[in-house]
């Protein structure tokens, strides 16, 4: 039984981080209508910013997280202003190429400055709780609580505030949003800022139980793509539920079947779900 609960915990940890990263991706998809391949690179930059503020400047963990969120949000806005906004009338393929370009640029930049080696991010929460035969490191609890409260805040923001509603309106119907006088530039910048901030917070939460290196975004971004396809492109509940599905599939599949096959299990699930619901689980989002 405790082994089962341990897997529930593992699934929750993975699922909440996957969900958080996928959320940012799905939000930007609502605006750009192309997947932002550079999202994983933003996640990676977020981890490096927290690492540097914490290790080189000796700043507290939470302040480092805020700093990372700020820097990456700014970086995401810059990407929108300098790259995606000028391309808004271009065919979608240009956006995709530009996104890949940003990803390669950021990775090369980080690797040039900090090298390709692995780094370990410190965390003040190193206790390990033992509850009913389960091992629960404090950082993992923090990941789950942090990710879910952030999702809740984002949900409230999008549903209950006027600014949030403009994002939803843009995602649902671009022309309609223009007709009621929503400023497309402002919404686009805001969406990019939120998605960058989410990526940086996700990275700061997750990096202490993992490693920091220039290619760290690849793994997560691949999962995040699967998740938003699974959940329905542009759908917010889809990203959260999709994240949890993939997280649990990896934890349980890896434990009860084989760790070697856990990715196969996740992708097989994707095939099954898409063959039943070809547009993803939650199709109310965009298109």
């Amino acid at each position, binding site marked *: 039984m405790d082994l089962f609960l*341990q897997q529930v915990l*593992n699934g929750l940890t993975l699922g909440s981080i996957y969900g958080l990263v996928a959320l940012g991706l799905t939000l930007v998809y609502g605006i750009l209508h192309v997947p932002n391949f550079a999202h994983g690179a933003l996640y990676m930059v977020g981890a490096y910013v927290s690492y540097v503020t914490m290790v080189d400047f000796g700043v507290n963990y939470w302040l480092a997280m805020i700093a990372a969120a700020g820097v990456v949000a700014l970086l995401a806005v810059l990407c929108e202003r300098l790259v995606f906004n000028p391309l808004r009338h271009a065919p979608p393929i240009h956006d995709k190429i530009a996104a890949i370009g940003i990803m390669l640029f950021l990775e090369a930049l980080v690797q040039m400055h900090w090298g*390709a080696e692995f780094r*370990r991010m410190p965390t003040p929460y190193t206790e390990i709780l033992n509850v009913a035969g389960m091992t629960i490191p404090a950082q993992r609890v923090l990941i789950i609580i942090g990710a879910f409260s952030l999702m809740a805040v984002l949900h409230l923001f999008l549903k209950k505030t006027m600014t949030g509603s403009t994002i939803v309106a843009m995602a649902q119907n671009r022309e309609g949003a223009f007709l009621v006088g929503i400023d497309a530039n402002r919404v686009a910048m805001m969406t990019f800022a939120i998605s960058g901030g989410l990526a940086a917070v996700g990275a700061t939460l997750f990096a202490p*139980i993992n*490693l920091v290196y220039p290619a760290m975004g690849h793994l997560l971004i691949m999962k995040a793509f699967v998740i938003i396809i699974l959940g329905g492109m542009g759908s917010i509940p889809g990203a959260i539920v999709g994240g949890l599905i993939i997280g649990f599939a990896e934890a349980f599949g*890896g*434990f009860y079947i084989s760790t*070697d096959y856990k*990715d196969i299990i996740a992708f097989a699930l994707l095939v099954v779900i898409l063959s039943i619901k070809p547009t993803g689980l939650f199709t109310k989002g965009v298109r």
Partner: protein
Amino acid sequence: MSNGKFKRFCRLACASAIALAATGAQAAETVTIGFTGPLSGGAALYGQNTLEGLQMAAKEINDKGGFQVDGETYEINLVSLDDKYSPSQAAVNGKRLVQQYDAPVIFTPHSGGTFALQAFNERSGFLVMSYTSVPTVTEKGNDLTVRIPPTFTGYMKPFTKIAMAENGKKVAVANATHDYAKYWTKAFVPTWEAMGGTVVANNPMDYNKSADFYTGVSKVLAEDPDVLFIGGASEPTALVAKQARELGFKGGFVIMDQAKMGEMSKIIGGYDMLEGSVGVVPLTLYEEQGAKDFVAKYHKLNDGKDPTTEVAYNYFALYSVVQAMKEAGTVEDAKAIRAAIGEALKNLAPENNPYGVTEIDAKGGMMADPNIATVKDGKVVLQRISEVLGE
């Protein structure tokens, strides 16, 4: 080509010919040492590290004015070509190095490249210096091949012996899934069983593609092993060890030689979590004088950066080739150079031989007796393989 362009081309060609002639006149003689390895792509860092060792040795030798063979002074001209880790490209590079540059010796840091060069090295008369621990490169009986590092199979018995004595006889396999890890598992499991142990779980994990190892590690720990066999790149391996401890594992680790304990301790903050483990350590922890001298020299040249195993072995390998040329009295006859390597190893200066290699077997494998490390009471204890097995 237009007339103007052609003239410019001629002028350029003349200039470079003169430049070449000028350099030729300055140095008495040069001997070309070839290198083919991955200098771009995913394995670029590895390739660069191996080349760095050769460059360091070549520079030292040339800065001292070269070396004497049969009364003539020679300088080393190191020609490196990129093969992107591809055997077919290595073969093309090999042909170029022999035909265009007339290289009597070619270094390559991968088994695929070695096999490709072995297809024609005896016919074309050049010596292959292979930096790979895959045993088959020398077992095929190629007369002009030298394997520089020891084979990984040499670690099986001492690792098993120590791990069993320290922890117990039940092992769970939780190493990585790449080819090298699979070769290791294939050799390790039979050794463990032959020495009276049992394998209670076998669950390799993709160290590079897993966001988290909790699931995989808790799966093997459910079988209650005494020893966990882990290993991949040092850093993820350290995470696997840490997560196993968090999940309540009390036994020891057998750490595959790809991971270095020194690197792992940086990730997990010391050796406490590795209590009862056996593995390999980087050269910087060796206590032999030759190793210390080499590390000090490397630190001085590189702002205190630690030398990698690749740098150290390839540095040593070029020195041993040069020494063999001196012993053989030729820089051209690959057979004579190969035959003289055994003698050369005995006469190498310790600072040029950081691993203290003194012998080469009949098939061309260098016989190093590397240190292996055990963690006892939070401290690293070093022993030579021969000491462990001789007990």
